[in-house]
């Protein structure tokens, strides 16, 4: 599936078409008895535009432009903390405004922790981090339905090291635009 989406993006960039099929997640519903792993996962939806299209002038989408603040998708945290530091305010503002302007767009905020401590407690701590970022985004105009918050706890570190520098890199929230 990933290959298919990458091909679609590339085709878009080359051809300069406006709309690209992306997958909008169906609202996650309670699983019925007997459902398998498929229940609740993002399902194929109607084509929506907005996150990978190009602008009228044919320039790169702001999300894909390394010079645009929307390209920055990571927010870092202090140890044992889920307080969003002031230095990320501008970045979060920008994403919130983008969501506010582009109503069909969906993001997943993934919370992460460093490797220390209980795996399950770290799932919960990572969740507090993603929830804290969501709260800020909502204050700035994004809507609840646009943002799902999840946590990977300590399971998907960016840095496999066992020192302070590695740990600091792993305490983070990643902003993932659905369909990317």
């Amino acid at each position, binding site marked *: *599936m990933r290959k*298919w989406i990458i091909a679609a993006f590339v085709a878009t960039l080359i051809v300069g078409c406006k709309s690209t099929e992306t*997958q909008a997640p169906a*609202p*996650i519903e*309670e*699983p*019925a*008895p*007997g*459902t*398998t*792993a*498929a*229940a*609740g*996962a993002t*399902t*194929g939806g109607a084509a929506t535009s907005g996150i990978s299209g190009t602008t009228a002038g044919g320039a790169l989408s702001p999300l894909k432009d390394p010079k645009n603040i929307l390209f920055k998708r990571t927010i870092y945290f202090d140890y044992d903390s889920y307080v969003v530091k002031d230095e990320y305010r501008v970045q979060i503002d920008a994403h919130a405004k983008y969501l506010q302007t582009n109503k069909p767009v969906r993001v*997943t905020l*993934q919370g992460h922790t460093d*490797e*220390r*401590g*209980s*795996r*399950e*407690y770290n*799932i*919960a*701590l990572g*969740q*507090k981090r993603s*929830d804290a970022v969501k709260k800020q985004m909502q204050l700035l105009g994004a809507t609840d339905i646009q943002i*799902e*918050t*999840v*946590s*990977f*706890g300590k*399971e*998907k570190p960016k840095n496999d090291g*066992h020192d302070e520098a590695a740990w600091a890199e792993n305490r983070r929230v990643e902003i993932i635009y659905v369909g990317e």
Partner: protein
Amino acid sequence: MFRFARFLFLLVAFALLAPVPARAQLTIEIIGGAGTTIPIAIVPFENESNWPLGISGVVGADLTRSGLFKLVDYAGIVPRPARAEEVRAGDWRARGADAVAVGTLRAQPDGRVEVRFALVDVVKGAELAVVSYVVTPAQFRATAHKIADVIYEKLTGDVGVFSTRIAYIAKQGPRYQLHVAEADGYNPQTVVTSNEPLLSPAWSPDGTRIAYVSLENKKPVVYIQSLATGQRQALANFRGSNSAPAWAADGRKLAVTLTKDGGSQLFLINADGTAVQRLLSSPGIDTEPNFTPDGRSILFTSDRGGTPQIYRLNLGSNAVERLTFDGSYNVSPRATPDGKGFVFVRRDGGRFQVAIQDYATRQVQVLTSGPLDESPSISPNSKLILYAAEQGGRGILAAVSSDGRVKQRLVAPATDVREPAWGPLPR
């Protein structure tokens, strides 16, 4: 839509492997023993060398591994006894043995084998047990574990756990597998394979199913999988994160942590995924639920007091009581099956250690030294605690007895092992 459905089908099919033999075998070493051990001689059973698996060897290894027994040399006593009446107590007492186990194997016409063993107390000169099994050679290992259980119970007074299984997660590079092995680490079977993390395996009380958390959908989802068929079902896949499954004693309900209503909170859910019921409301984190053996309470971790501590929820009265007060990080409660207390993980000066606390006295005994110990799981006889540790930058499993004296290390080659879960006693 169809392409995605096919992708999902393949993913599910991949994960639904019926148990297959796993490559990485766990080896268990004893690195610390009990103060006093029971000296016992396990005499090779008559005719056992006619088959490739030496039953008496597995029995001896089981008992040694428990840390409570010391094997006494059997060489040089002739003729070698095979039955209780052939044991000359004086010979064995002279070697320092308190007990002697002897046995015979007799092939039956239908291809099965009668395994007969006897346990003799050579101090009192009494026959403690005589048991006979008729099994196939493929069942020899399981039979040896049963014999070890009988010896353990007769000589210590406690239920043996040699016939139980353990589950754990094995990571090799980007691949995660849930393994189920015999309690001595032998015959690991792969129950789930995934390219995304797996965690929190939890055995159903009857040992037929395992609940676990998978990140294959890019978010934590709780699954329940049947060990016999490999079939699985999503137990909880709500918006947000779904994790920390804990079975109630009747096997019909589980407690889980869900963030669907905002924040990590505790819920009860039927094993078929229906009837989701919120247990508690708190402004912060409530997670890591664990039922007490009497089914009346749930232990859990919460930061409602400012730091992560362990609390107990009384399911009848809904009263919540804080249990840990020492230090600023006490998590991962696991109620001991004997009902006396719970094991947990504490952080002390940056080191994460396994400890045990008694409900009545509130006394805490620190059992391990860390620095990164986690995920304790206690044996069904409350005697041994399996947990995850780190050695040389690699994940290993370790075990410690509930009094802190016996220590074991379980390692698999070229594999990170973590998240152990001790299975129930066989029914």
